[in-house]
Structures are given as structure tokens and as C-alpha cells.
């Protein structure tokens, strides 16, 4: 069985990581479709995808809850599977947390009306990733879905998702929050609070300072719940039901990125990195023909001239294919005994249409597929 088939049949959560622009959202959606076509009921969770993918899946942006995707005609067999997609709005998740865990309704509404809070998810680095994990938390104890695929938020590098919860919790740290709330603790604590008040007063003015303090006081009260969820999720991510996939594209940085990612995820965080998906590769062109001008006797002279002009591009494509094959081998060598590399073809502009997704999903479902290497 090809490794993707194995993965979508045995895991409960698959987390797709990767740098921006490698086709991570498309890959996640195609994985979901592939899993639905083998009878799974699947949820794909994604944050702020491109409009076109939302359109292709036929769902609204940022709905309140997951929306079923119409996959009739996209999957071959009469499968029992289903696909839902949820384009996540981080602010909405934060609101739910506030509603659920606030001490009183009054606290919840004061916090939700606080101007600092209203902008917090847009303003705190790592908050998107943090809320993505919170959203996932809602579903892991829920047996509506056999498989949840999490498409991590766009970022410059693939490691961001792994680091983000820590980055957000540097901000969401109760001890730091308490410093901003006056009137408690030791003399040194009170002096620090005074210094902070002074800095905030001259920087923002007293009104904003009071809003900040109100925010810190109320939101600070929720932190123990949030951090509890986060800690539980971290344990869950390390469990056997969860696998991480690295989505990458054939660039010069791919090798180094994979190396870093594996080291950090497997070595330091003890997560299961199942494999690497090398997207947009030309490895499927193995066996293609090199066009030769004047190859057939009596070839149309216009065609001969055109093939002659095409030659530089033909050679370039062949060279790229060879490069991608080599990269695939090198990535496979990096990925250890259990890991694998799965190449997906470059579909160009069609990749994120429904037909494109379906083509990629078929590719993932193909047992004869030789595009992977262990």
C-alpha cells in the first residue's frame, strides 16, 4: 500500500506543515478528498485560505462551523466517506474560549467589548496558530470525524507552527499579565507595576493604559484554561493517532528545510513526522520523449522550426526532472527508516480547482503509483 493510503486509513489527525507558497492548502484539501474516497468522514481545517480554494470547495470563508463539501462525482466508488471543510476565523475561536471560560457573563461581555481584546488575534504573533490548536481541541473528543487534517497557517518557514504556541504563550503568560494589574504582590512586584504604568501612561495616555489593564486582568483569568488545553494538545500531538507531514516544493532550500524540520519535530518535540510531500515536481515526466526536429522524414518544416525553438525548453525540463529525481532521493535518505517522500505532479494553474484537487487525490490513491520512495 502506498504510504499516503496507509496514513489516511490509520491516523486520526494529520498536520500539514510547510512554508508559504508550496501548495500546502491544496495538498491538505486533496488529502481530505483522498481519505473521503476510501470511506472516511473527514474534516479539513484551514486558516484564511485563498479565496479560490474556498470557492472551489464551495464553502464560505470563516463560517461558524464546518461546512460539508459536495464531493459527488469527485470520488469514484460509492463510498461512505464525507468531506467537511472549516475555514477558521481566529477571532471566533477566541470568542468561544472567552464565553466558555469567563468567570461570569458580565466578565465575558466586558472583555469582548474591550478594544484591546477586539484586536488581539490580529495583533499577537502566534495567535493564529494558538487558536488553530484550540479549534482542534474542540474536535478531538468528538467522534463525528474519523480524520481531521489541519492545514497550518501561512508563514515564511515550515517550523513556525511548531514554535508558535510557545511564542503566543510568551504573551499569554500569567506572570507577565499580573505585572500589569496593580495592587497585588510583593514590594518589588508593585514597583515594577508602577514603572510599567509610568511607561504606559507616557506612551499611550491613562485611558488606554486602563483599557490595557482591564484586558490583562480579564484575559489573564482565562489563561490557565487555555494553557491547560494547549498542554493537553501537546501530549495529544505526540501520540500515535497524530502524524505530521512536511509539504515542500523543489527549491534549493528544500533539503535544508527538511533537515531542520525533522530534527526539531522528531528530535526535540518527539512528534511523528510521517513523511515529506514534494509538491510541484516533474518526477512524473520520467519516460517522456525528447522532441527532435526533422525526426520523421517529411516532417512539416514549420514543425521542425518550432521544435528547434522548443529545444531549449525541452532540455531545461529534462534537466529539472533529473534534479527533482535526485532531490527526491536525497530527501528519502534524510527521512530515516520509516519516513518516505511522496512526489506530486506540477499541475500548474489548475491545481486548486475542484478538478485539480480530484486529480491530486486520485494520484494519492493510486496503489501502482511509483512516485514515492522510502
Amino acid at each position, binding site marked *: 500500500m502506498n504510504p499516503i493510503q496507509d496514513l489516511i486509513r490509520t491516523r486520526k489527525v494529520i498536520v500539514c506543515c510547510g*512554508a*508559504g*507558497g*508550496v501548495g500546502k492548502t491544496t495538498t491538505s484539501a486533496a488529502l481530505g478528498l483522498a481519505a473521503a474516497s476510501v470511506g472516511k468522514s473527514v474534516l479539513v481545517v484551514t486558516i*484564511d485560505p*485563498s*479565496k*479560490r480554494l474556498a470557492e472551489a470547495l464551495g464553502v464560505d470563508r470563516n463560517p461558524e462551523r464546518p461546512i460539508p463539501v459536495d464531493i459527488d462525482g469527485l470520488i469514484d466508488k460509492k463510498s461512505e466517506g464525507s468531506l467537511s471543510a472549516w475555514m477558521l476565523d481566529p477571532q471566533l475561536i477566541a470568542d468561544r474560549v472567552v464565553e466558555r471560560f469567563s468567570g461570569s457573563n458580565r466578565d465575558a461581555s466586558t472583555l469582548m467589548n474591550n*478594544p*484591546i481584546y477586539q*484586536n*488581539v488575534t*490580529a*495583533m*499577537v*504573533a502566534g495567535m493564529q496558530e494558538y487558536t488553530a490548536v484550540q479549534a482542534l481541541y474542540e474536535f478531538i473528543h468528538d467522534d463525528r470525524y474519523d480524520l481531521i487534517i489541519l492545514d497550518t497557517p*501561512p508563514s*515564511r518557514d515550515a517550523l513556525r507552527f511548531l514554535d508558535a504556541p510557545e511564542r503566543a504563550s*510568551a*504573551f499569554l*503568560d500569567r506572570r*507577565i499579565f499580573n*505585572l*500589569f494589574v496593580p495592587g497585588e504582590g510583593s514590594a518589588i512586584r508593585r514597583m*515594577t507595576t508602577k*514603572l510599567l504604568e*509610568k*511607561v504606559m501612561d*507616557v*506612551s*499611550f*495616555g491613562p485611558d*488606554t493604559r486602563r*483599557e*490595557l489593564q482591564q484586558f490583562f486582568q480579564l484575559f489573564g483569568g482565562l489563561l490557565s484554561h487555555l494553557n491547560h488545553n494547549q498542554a493537553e494538545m501537546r501530549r495529544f500531538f505526540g501520540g500515535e493517532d497524530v502524524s505530521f507531514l512536511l509539504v515542500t516544493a523543489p527549491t534549493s532550500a528544500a533539503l535544508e528545510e527538511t533537515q531542520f524540520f525533522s530534527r526539531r519535530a522528531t528530535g526535540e518535540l518527539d512528534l511523528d513526522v510521517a513523511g515529506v510531500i514534494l509538491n510541484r515536481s*516533474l518526477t512524473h*515526466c520520467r*519516460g*517522456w*520523449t*525528447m*522532441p527532435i526536429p526533422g525526426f520523421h522524414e517529411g516532417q512539416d518544416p*514549420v*514543425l521542425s*522550426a*518550432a*521544435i528547434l525553438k*522548443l*529545444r531549449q*525548453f*525541452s*532540455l*531545461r*525540463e*529534462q534537466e529539472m*526532472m533529473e534534479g527533482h529525481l535526485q532531490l527526491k532521493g536525497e530527501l528519502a535518505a534524510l527521512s530515516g527508516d520509516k519516513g518516505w517522500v511522496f512526489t506530486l505532479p*506540477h499541475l*500548474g*494553474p489548475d491545481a*486548486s480547482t475542484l478538478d485539480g484537487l480530484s486529480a491530486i487525490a486520485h494520484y494519492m490513491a493510486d496503489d501502482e503509483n511509483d512516485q514515492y520512495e522510502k
Partner: protein
Amino acid sequence: MYFLNRHTLLISGKGGVGRTAVAAAIGLASSRAKKRTLVLEISYEESSQSALGARFGRPNLNEEALPIDDYLAIGRLNAKVGHSLFLRTILPSKTLIAAALRSKAVHKFLTAAPSLHEMGIFYHLLTLIQKTRADGTRKYELIIIDMPATGHTLALTGLPAILLRLIPAGPIARALKDGQAILNNPDLSEAWIVTLPEKLPVTEALELVDGLTETDVTVGGMILNRMPPDPFTEDERAVLDAYCETGHFFGQLTLARIRAAKVAMSDLKNRFDAPVLTLPEVVDTDLMTNPLQSHISELMGAES
């Protein structure tokens, strides 16, 4: 004439479209036109290597503006530098400044609290824009900023409006208004969006135009990067298409890409009402000899 008659250019676009290469090439072209030019990137992680610096053989570029030659300097915008510059101007006494800069709590607050990270970057940029020489003229006549990916770009350009709602008065508000007076003035500042001649990147670039317009930043135009050359006549194209139907041939992907690029370009021109410049696909090697720069020099001379 493009680019040269502004004070600041924000070079924006999604990851992987060649934004840094374009920002650096505009910087080179402008400096060769004898404008005192500063190219900046934004460092989110202090320890990380500089993508901009790497193009000039200086991957360890830090926060100081580094002169490359008489007319060109490169540097990184950094929140921490901005914060300390800011604290120095607002706090009334040296003792307080020293205490604030030493305090771990203040430091944690500045790095972690909502928007203050962006505010630091914003303030650092503002001080560089306002820098003058002994004779009172601007130290840098043109500042080019290699903006981060879409979300971070809008967080930065939208910052003044959001923060001014929260903080209507005081020194932060004044700095924000000074910044707005430059960045939201179409005579002084423009954003240029780098994108690729493909369907999805074009759609996303148009979304970015809307986002930037909402934050009151004027979009000067788009740069369609890596436009594949099309050497074929219509007749040749027709016979090649027919030929490719008969099997799988190396070169057919490029043919499809050339066609898609032309469709994407005309689609963009139909939907976007400002200049669309194209840059050809070049092998991205050493920047100092990068052919992009000569293309941009040509565009700078072109009438707009």
C-alpha cells in the same frame, strides 16, 4: 518614470514571488541613477539570516544600515531597535530610560503585547525616513522596503489606523500620525505588488490591492515577475500543440506555462487599473550582475 519620484516604496507580495530580488534590484537601479537609496527588510527573528543581505554577500546583516557604495545602503528594521529609540524620546529622565530598558518586564511587554512589535518596526522605519544630513536634506532620498508576506504587510500598514483608535493621544499617536503623513501620501509613498503570471497569484495580488487600499496605502502598480519569453509564431504554436497531442514530450509543460502566463497577464490588465510592469524570467544568481537590475533601470527611464 517609475519608482524614482517617491520617498518610500513598499514592495509587497506573497512568499516565493521574488519580492526580495525585485526590491534589491530596484535599489541597485536607483543607486546607479545617483539617488541616495536605502533598501530595508524586516527582521522578525533577530538571529535569522538576512535574505536581503545574502544578495549582497552579507547574510549576517544586522540592524545598522550598511553602506554598499556611495549611493546604496541596506539594513533591517527591527522592533527592539524601534522600542529603544522610542523609549529614549518619551521618557523624561535618563534614570527612567535606563530602568525601562533594563527591566525584563518592560522588554517582555514590548515583545509580546498586542501590536507593540509592529509599532517598534514602524518607529524604526520612521526614524530612518526622517534622518537628515548636515545640510538638512534627507539622508536617504529613496527608501525601499521588502515587506513581509501579505498578512504581516497588512498588519503593518493597518497599524496606524488601528492603534490610533486605541490610543488617540500621546507620543505614540504623534509618531503614528507622522508615519501616516508619509506612508499614506500618494505623492511620497507607493506600494508595488510583485506577483507571478499565474492565475492564483494574480487573484491574490488583486486581493492584496484591496487590502492595501483599505489601509490607505496607494498601490503604484504591479510587477509581473518571471514572465516566460514566447519565441513562437502563431503557426508554430498551432503545429506544436497538435504535435503534443500525439504523446508526452519534454517542453510541453513550458508551452502550457507560456499560454497560462499570457492569459494571466491579460486578465490582470483587465482587472487592475494601474501600471503592470513585466520582468522576464532570469536565472537568479549574483545580484550585482543580476539582469533584473538592468530591466528595472530601463523601466525607470520609461515614461509612465
